[in-house]
């Protein structure tokens, strides 16, 4: 690890997450170790229930581990309070979900502006930024459309644009193509690859699909809450 050329921007050390469901304890992560360097594109694969989403949520500051430490950009986030976590989520993380997770009452443009509102960005600035991002995902024509007026692929592109609105260091994509057919999935992947190559974003992506996973620099295999295999893909 010390030999790595880039200092890791994400580092999970012996991370445990145990959910207490009444009497039953569900161990979602059991000593997960993972390091991602700045600018890297990493895929995470594994069977359903292996803890992939839980790991993503930990990295994305949506939850804190039961045990272990998580460093994000050099900061230990494993013990942070809610408000600091929200701050980091808003500024350093861009989430892309399988369900797209756009706000149904807001238009495409407004959805993209929302994270910027939470960061207190002035109206003119965020409007310009949102339009630029929509153009980037080639949906500038659809700016005033509500999510239910857009196809799945289009919604996911809006979500990609939204994830970029506060210029995050890290993009976390949890099965971004899981709800899309392979053709639209490929288009969405093209945008993600572009973010990686052209913008140098660090991307961590969960997927079921081997072909989709191969777009990354490296594939980590997760089983029962820890990494069981790493596969370097030839880029």
């Amino acid at each position, binding site marked *: 690890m010390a030999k790595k050329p880039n200092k890791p921007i994400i580092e999970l050390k012996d991370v445990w997450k145990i959910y207490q469901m009444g009497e039953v304890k569900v161990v979602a992560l059991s000593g997960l170790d993972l390091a991602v360097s700045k600018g890297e594109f990493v895929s995470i694969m594994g069977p359903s229930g292996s803890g992939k989403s839980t790991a993503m*949520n930990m990295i994305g500051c949506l939850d804190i581990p039961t045990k272990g430490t998580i460093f994000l950009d050099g900061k230990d986030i494993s013990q942070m309070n809610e408000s600091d976590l929200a701050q980091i989520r808003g500024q350093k993380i861009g*989430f892309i979900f399988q369900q797209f997770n756009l*706000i149904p009452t807001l238009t495409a443009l407004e959805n993209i502006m929302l994270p910027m*509102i939470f960061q207190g960005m002035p109206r003119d600035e965020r409007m310009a930024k949102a339009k630029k991002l929509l153009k980037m995902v080639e949906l500038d024509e659809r700016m005033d459309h509500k999510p239910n007026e857009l196809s799945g692929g289009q919604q996911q592109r809006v979500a990609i644009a939204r994830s970029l609105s506060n210029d995050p260091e890290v993009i976390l994509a949890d099965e971004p193509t899981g709800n899309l057919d392979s053709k639209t999935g490929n288009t969405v992947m093209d945008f993600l690859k572009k973010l990686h190559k052209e913008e140098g974003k660090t991307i961590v992506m969960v997927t079921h699909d081997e072909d989709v996973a191969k777009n990354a620099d490296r594939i980590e295999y997760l089983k029962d809450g820890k990494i069981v295999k790493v596969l370097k893909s030839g880029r």
Partner: protein
Amino acid sequence: MISDYISLSVRSLLKRRLRTYLTMIGIFIGIAAVVSLIGLGEGLRVAITSQFGFLGTDVLSVQAANINFAGAPGQGAPNPLQEDLVDKINKINNVDRAFGRYIGSATIEFRDKQKIEFIVSIPGGEDRRIFERMMNLKTQDGRLLTDQDTRGALLGSNYHTGTTYGATFDRPINAGDKVLINDKQFTVVGILENKGSFIFDDAIMMNNDVMITEGIKADDGTVNIIGVKVKDVDQIEQTRLDIEKLLRKERDVKEGEEDFTVQTPQQALESLNSTLFAVQLFVTIIAVISLVVGGIGIMNTMYTAVLERTKEIGIMKSIGARNSTIFTLFFIESGMMGMIGGLIGIGLGMSFAYGLSYIAGLALGSDLIRASISIWLVLGALAFSFFFGTIFGVLPAIRASKLNPVDSLRGAK
């Protein structure tokens, strides 16, 4: 910043327009009740105090029972007082002086602007001095009336200095000015000193006989009110009973079924105040009940909204919303719900208050009941309803803000 949150909240409300309106029903009924209560409160006070025709501790006033509590005394009484009662009362022991008075309403016109006000009579002859002393009548401009003033009127201070002229007339009316009262020309002989009471300050006064000859009061041998000054104040209660007995006999009614009242001004005021109090209590109870129902409605709707929007809350948190942000959004939403309800309520309350005063104006022929709704009442009601909405929104907003982001994102999957 806050404006962005407001616009987000309004979006959410508009999305569920019907539910929003249904939730607000309680609020707008409550606010409407409050607004009309306060708006009419002043008007009612005027109506009530105008019934209070005589002042002093040694005075009794005799009135026929009114059908409506807000009209001028003796007006609209099914069985008015007969004028000959005055002489009969005068013969009762301990009665110093009794005199009949007329009270009605009339149109007063000055420089082409007109207004309906109440008009009261002043007795003539030797009774005049007693009456003037009893009511402590003094002028600030001009003089008091005399028996020779067949075309003279005395006006309350509001025609001269108060707000009344400003709302109706171009300029203050002074002693010496000519006015039209019920389309007949009168000379204003004097303006009374300000008494701080609408009974005097808004009143038009003229001689008893003039009110009859000019047709302002029908010449039907009845009076609206009889004022009785007693000799010995300590025996005023006995005198009151004596007068009651006389009236029962004259009007042929049994004890306990009196269609008239004999009261000291104090008693008159108290009984009217209790009527007013009953009305206000009733409206207040309606207001409180509907506000509580409305508030609980808001709380219920907001809890439902939290459940429905659990996923949305998770999404917002995942893109950087803090707990406080979520709290603010829901808090504003419930406040807006209260405020929009309040806005509708203010509209309803104002229409009700003005409508009632208009109808009362038509029915009573005078503007004794008047609505006065100030900008402060409106702003106050708005602020209150916003605040009220937020109070009931606090708990749901706290629940929303405390939702765990991971659970909320998973929960609705």
